């Protein structure tokens, strides 16, 4: 800030730090943005663990601990609940002209995007830690050991980046908080029509199995789940991480272009 005051352009790293601080502060000030993405998935986890314990008796079910199975959905729900408010904030900043005002400051579009994403990823780390602690307390075991915990964190970051990038892209294109909010049911459809509630091999209904197999969310859930149940399943991890990285890349490029055009409208 002092550099700006002196008429100098701050370095991209300083810009990024300032903007990440602003985003994190905004998240911390809004208790619902912090608590809901942690609390709501944990409530659903508690209900699923208590309601679905009979599922472990099914022949071919991969584990005897239902929490190991149900935790995959929790990570995805958390990412979804966190990304939508963050993208709504971006849409509101566009609606209210905050971003246009930033365009007059010496800050690049890439830094703006990275700062927003940085705040989402930071919150994702906290959320990941909370989910892991609760799961372990509920009797879950990470079959891959400490290395698996590190892989879990990487997966969480990739997942957060993927979902947030898509939500940011919609915010930039629509410039409307309402439209961003309507993403929730759309994501929710993908979440529910996946293998989140039952392994694909055990799904009875043919049409549902086909949908679940075609749904990329199935592979994201299975990547998380594999770390708890299967040990190092390279195929599941590569599929999950690859899908998340591909979505992040495609949506991230769209975001960069959208942000440049959003800021150019003022310039």
């Amino acid at each position, binding site marked *: 800030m002092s550099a700006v005051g002196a008429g100098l352009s701050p370095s991209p790293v300083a810009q990024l730090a300032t903007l990440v601080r602003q985003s994190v502060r905004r998240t911390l000030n809004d208790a619902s943005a912090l608590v809901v993405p942690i609390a709501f998935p944990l409530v659903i986890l508690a209900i699923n663990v208590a*309601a679905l314990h009979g599922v472990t008796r099914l022949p071919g079910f991969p584990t005897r601990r239902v929490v190991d199975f149900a935790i995959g959905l929790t990570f995805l729900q958390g990412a979804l609940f966190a990304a939508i408010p963050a993208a709504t904030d971006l849409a509101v900043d566009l609606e209210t002209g905050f971003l246009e005002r930033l365009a007059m400051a010496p800050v690049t579009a890439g830094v703006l995007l990275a700062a927003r994403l940085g705040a989402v990823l930071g919150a994702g780390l906290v959320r990941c830690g909370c989910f892991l602690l609760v799961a372990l307390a509920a009797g879950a075991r990470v079959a891959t050991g400490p290395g698996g915990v590190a892989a879990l964190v990487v997966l969480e970051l990739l997942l957060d980046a993927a979902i947030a990038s898509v939500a940011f892209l919609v915010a930039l294109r629509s410039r409307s908080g309402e439209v961003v909010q309507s993403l929730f049911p759309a994501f929710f459809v993908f979440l529910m029509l996946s293998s989140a509630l039952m392994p694909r091999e055990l799904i*009875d209904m043919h049409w549902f199995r086909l949908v679940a197999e075609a749904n990329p969310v199935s592979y994201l859930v299975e990547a998380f789940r594999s770390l708890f149940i299967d040990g190092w399943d390279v195929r599941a991890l590569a599929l999950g991480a690859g899908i998340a990285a591909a979505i992040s890349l495609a949506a991230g490029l769209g975001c960069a272009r959208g942000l440049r055009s959003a800021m150019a409208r003022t310039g």
Partner: protein
Amino acid sequence: MSAPLQDLRARAARAALVAFALGRRGTKAWITSPPFVVITLLFPLIFLAAFAGALSPLAHDRGFDYPGDYTTFIYGFVVLQAAAFGGVFTGYSAARDFELGFAPRIFLAVPDRSAVLAGYLLVATIRSLIAAGVVTLAALAGGMAPRCDAGQALLVAVLVVLVAVMATCWTTGIAMRLRTTRAGPLMHTPVLIAMFLTPVYVPLALLDGWLRAAASWNPLTQLVEASRALLVGTNTHLHESLAIAGLLVVLFGAWALRGIATTARGV
């Protein structure tokens, strides 16, 4: 006819007119807004597809003693959940009426406040019955084979209306007190949690630990079980569920009317 009686009849006729006009306005606003229609219908349909599609192997678990098929079992829950969503979305509409300045004008124009609540209840009833109809068609297309007669199907519709009325009274009470759509989480979260603290995926006897205790105490469990029983041609839990629903309607109705009265005094 005595003058007071004539006056009472005239007031009742005016109140009915107001309720009908509000009901027509709300229903028209809903039907002519495709995103609202889609969202009202989407969630129950997705829950039906996801639960019936993914979790049907649970019906093979020992102790799963429901005499119908698993799609019917899930439908018995989802149809009531659709009604609850109809009530929640009507609460959003009531809050929006405040934000748009419509509600204060209505309170100035209508002396009988209960007519305002009746108008919202009419909207919720129509929404819920339409949603229930769509869910029913989807369930039948998905292989549901109910074994109920027309009278029992009508009783399921009565339960749908009672749940819609309960949810609407709850959410309208919130809307009247907080007068903003930002109160949405306060409207939908308790309703969602109360619905999920019933035996959603398996019968009550198969639930585990705390969820079994919570579901046993949850009055909505009786309604869900009555709905499921009616669908296989039995009237188990029917009288208890109607009594419980009646009591809850009275309690939540008082909550909503008190909210309306407080608000109307301030207009």
